[in-house]
């Protein structure tokens, strides 16, 4: 066999592999959809689950996931924004900046179950928030902190020096610079980070499964100390205890909703990131 044919063959083989890997996404989507189809009906999103998850919809589970996501982002955003602004605007020492960045990477790499364990101990036991949606939101807030930080830091560092120099030349105080130059100009970076953080929080199970959630009983939280049902843990319980096909179909249906939610948030982040790049090119 000549080397040219060999090379052509190899390239062809690689292209097939690439196609297979790329179609993995389609395969996963199609499988989840096909398996969840029996559970999907017009009221799936707005009905409550019945008969220990065997029938009905996933309204309260979806609400629970949303509550935890929103809570996490509301807690995490100020901290992420503030800490990145401090690191980029006020902190002068390069070593200090590097240490902060490394710690961000450490948080990002930490296995999520550890956030669940330590977070429950610290918030749930020491701060006495118990097994509740507040604990869950706090844990998820810590978990998505590095995701937000990375997006915001990228946007701030991409900001052209002209803006900063003009601000300084106008005699703006650091606070005015932050308020009227940095935050408005890095707006898209912040929103991108928010969407990526939401997507990460929505897909997380291990960190909240024993700290914030319940399987049935409680519906919408009525106080700060109530746990919530969530899509993720709903799926987990159904998967572990599924004995009949209807229950499993419910788990797949919930999976489809969860997957759509995560993909929607990711694509939103892309759209905004694309806009960010375009603005930077101007």
């Amino acid at each position, binding site marked *: 066999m000549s*080397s040219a044919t060999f*090379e052509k063959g*190899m*390239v062809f*083989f*690689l292209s097939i*592999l*690439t196609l297979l890997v*790329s179609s*993995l996404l389609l395969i*996963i989507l199609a*499988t*989840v959809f096909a*398996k969840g189809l029996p559970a999907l009906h017009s009221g799936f999103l707005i009905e409550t689950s019945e008969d220990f998850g065997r029938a009905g919809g996933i309204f309260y589970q979806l609400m629970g996931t949303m509550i935890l996501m929103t809570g996490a982002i509301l807690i995490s955003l100020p*901290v*992420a924004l*503030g*800490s990145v602004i*401090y690191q980029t605007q*006020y902190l002068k020492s390069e070593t200090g900046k590097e240490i*902060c960045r490394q*710690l961000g*990477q*450490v*948080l990002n*790499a*930490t*296995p*999520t*179950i550890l*956030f*669940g*364990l*330590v977070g*429950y*101990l610290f918030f*749930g*036991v020491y701060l006495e928030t118990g097994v509740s949606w507040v604990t869950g939101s706090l844990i998820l807030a810590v978990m998505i902190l590095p995701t937000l*930080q990375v997006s915001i830091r990228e946007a701030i560092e991409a900001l052209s020096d002209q803006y900063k120099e003009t601000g300084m030349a106008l005699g703006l*105080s*650091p*606070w005015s610079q932050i308020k009227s130059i940095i935050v408005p100009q890095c707006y898209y970076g912040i929103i991108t980070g928010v969407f990526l953080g939401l*997507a*990460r929080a929505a*897909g*997380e*199970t*291990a960190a909240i*499964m*024993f700290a914030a959630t319940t399987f049935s009983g409680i519906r919408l939280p009525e106080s700060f100390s109530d746990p919530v049902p969530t899509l993720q843990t709903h*799926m*987990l319980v159904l998967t*572990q205890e599924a004995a009949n096909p209807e229950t499993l179909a419910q*788990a797949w249906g919930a*999976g489809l909703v*969860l*997957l759509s939610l*995560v993909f929607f948030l*990711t694509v939103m982040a*892309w759209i905004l990131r694309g806009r960010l790049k375009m603005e930077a090119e101007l």
Partner: protein
Amino acid sequence: MKNESHGVMLVFAGLNLIFLCCAGGLFFFLIFESYPILKLHGFDFWLGQDWWVGETYGALPMLYGSTLVTALACLLVLPLALAVAIFISEFLTSTSRRCVKAVLELLAGVPGIVYGLLGVSFLSLWIKDIFGLLDGNTLATAGCLLAIMILPTVLTLSEDAMRAGPAEYREIALGLGLSKWQMATGVVLPQALPGIMGAVLLGIGRAMGETIAVMLVVGSLDRIPDPWFNIFSSAQTIPSKLGREAAESIGEGTHWSALMALGLTLFIMVLLINFLGNRFLKRRSIS
């Protein structure tokens, strides 16, 4: 005026301090909470083979399970990631490259519980049928599932490492009359090796910490397989052990302390791997 800006700075410094406390507190609590069990068992905690709640705690089966599953995922993912990364970086047009990268980013975001459900419903049944086993929940199942899960991460990072090679090298190689294939395997690939190492290490770090998907398919038996290389037997990994038992003893007792010590072990392992991975990736981008 001066006072106002000082106050503002303090607010931002305070927010940064919260962030530092999150990172530092995690490590502190893991050490603090695992101290009782380490004092009780000492180094034997990591060598003991038996885990009986209330009696004795030995982490070796979990350590071994985590290592084996991760190694398996790594072995499965490496050739595939390498082959596909070469193709994406050297043979695709930039538009299709961006499409594939977008697909990979979406894949990387698929929640672990969805992979878990897929693993339970398909992979473990397939492995059971193909190898004629009694139970499809084995180390091999977990390894395969993890390989699929970390593939997008490893692939994207390896591809970045290949793209990062200087364009002149490619042009010179082609100018010397090498074919595109020879250029890709002979020039780009060796250049990108440290970056690929980094990518694989970061993937391994992710695989080690994955809880839900592994917990559902690994079988959750606290023992070292017999013989030791038998990947078709049920075992346990550190995160899946934590996920299974944390709810039972939350916050108190020796059991909890033992679980936290397991968590500390996992944390240190993941941190070391990640540190190495980042070193490799950085070396690539500087040189």
